[in-house]
């Protein structure tokens, strides 16, 4: 396992995002030996995934009903740093509904819940590291961080690769959203390049005509930075 490139990630304490201040360790991280960091993790498989887990439009809907909102497909690949697809990676995803409201006891935003939308799903990557799921475009919403702060439309991702050191939680934003540059959480990212890496691109080649627009989001996990060599 290659050392983590910390220029890529937000620092622990980012005062513009208030919640980080009391939750940021100050004494520095202690590096582990790479072989220790490479401990393999749990392996999830098809038995862990329900038939509807990748369809957020219908997985919490009453029979014959669907979630309200602009229909989208999010698709892409999970890759390692060598550009090789990571098969069998588990993605867990969660998001607000089209009005910007989460189905969560602690979310009291004015926007209504959608009775046919839970905002949770999960998918496994295929042999080439590819994945996709169906959902509705999440809405922007305000959050307590000074007098007026808003989150851009975003989808939360949790990723299990093969090793504990690859474990990743992040958020996906949408190309062209003006809210990104005003967001205190997106602003924790250390560079415009890092923001771009979290911004899904509209991908008309993968649209489902007369059904849903497609957005492409590739995820890169640590490890295998060397040029991949294909067997056989």
């Amino acid at each position, binding site marked *: 396992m290659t050392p983590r490139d910390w220029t890529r990630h937000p620092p622990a304490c980012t005062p513009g995002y208030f919640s980080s201040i009391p939750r*940021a360790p*100050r004494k520095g991280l202690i590096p582990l030996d790479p072989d*220790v960091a490479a401990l393999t993790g749990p392996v999830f498989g098809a038995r862990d995934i329900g038939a509807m887990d990748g369809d957020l439009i219908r997985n919490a809907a009453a029979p014959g009903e669907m979630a309200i909102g602009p229909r989208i497909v999010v698709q892409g690949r999970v890759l390692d740093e060598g550009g090789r697809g990571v098969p069998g990676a588990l993605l867990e995803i*969660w998001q607000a509904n089209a009005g910007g409201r989460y189905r969560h006891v602690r979310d009291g935003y004015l926007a209504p819940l959608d009775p046919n939308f839970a905002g*949770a799903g999960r998918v496994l990557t295929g042999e080439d590291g590819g994945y996709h799921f169906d959902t509705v475009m999440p809405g922007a919403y305000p959050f307590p961080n000074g007098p007026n702060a808003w989150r851009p439309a975003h989808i939360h991702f949790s990723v299990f690769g093969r090793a*504990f050191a690859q474990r*990743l939680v992040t958020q996906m934003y949408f190309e062209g959203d003006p809210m990104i540059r005003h967001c205190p959480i*997106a602003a*924790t990212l250390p560079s415009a390049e890092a923001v771009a890496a979290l911004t899904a691109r509209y991908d008309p080649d993968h649209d489902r005509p007369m059904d849903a627009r497609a957005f492409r989001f590739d995820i*890169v996990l640590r490890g295998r930075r060397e040029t991949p060599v294909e067997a056989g």
Partner: protein
Amino acid sequence: MKETPSQTAGPFLHIGLMPDGIGIAPLAAPSPAEPVTLHGTLHDADGAPVSDALVEMWQVGGPWARCPTDAQGGWRLLAARPGAIPFVALWIIARGINTGLHTRLYFPDIDHAGDAAMARVPQDRRGTLVALDEGDGAYRLDIRLGGEDETVFFDV
């Protein structure tokens, strides 16, 4: 290629990571044959309980498990009775944690003198990683994200 950047899990991580509350079965965590209970609290630098976090555990040769913290910052996980490996790895995410934090729980009754990670930790901070043996297969470790007794976190 460069690793995808991290972002905070936010306050509503339960929706995606503990979705049983909305009718989706949670990921199955294997139950160990000879379980021991690991538990403790999670506090921030000001000593306030962190009630919206998730603690994940990976044990070498043992189970994987996760637990959301409760209103008092409490968490509880089942591990396998440890053999020669003196620790379990813990990973913590929450609102306000920009990149998931790696730490470890060491069992007090298993020799960790030769442990490579512990060897890198300054002597006066090692205690933040060693659980208290409460008997009856229960071990307690309180985790502090900051302050005087800040827990040791690793760059994994």
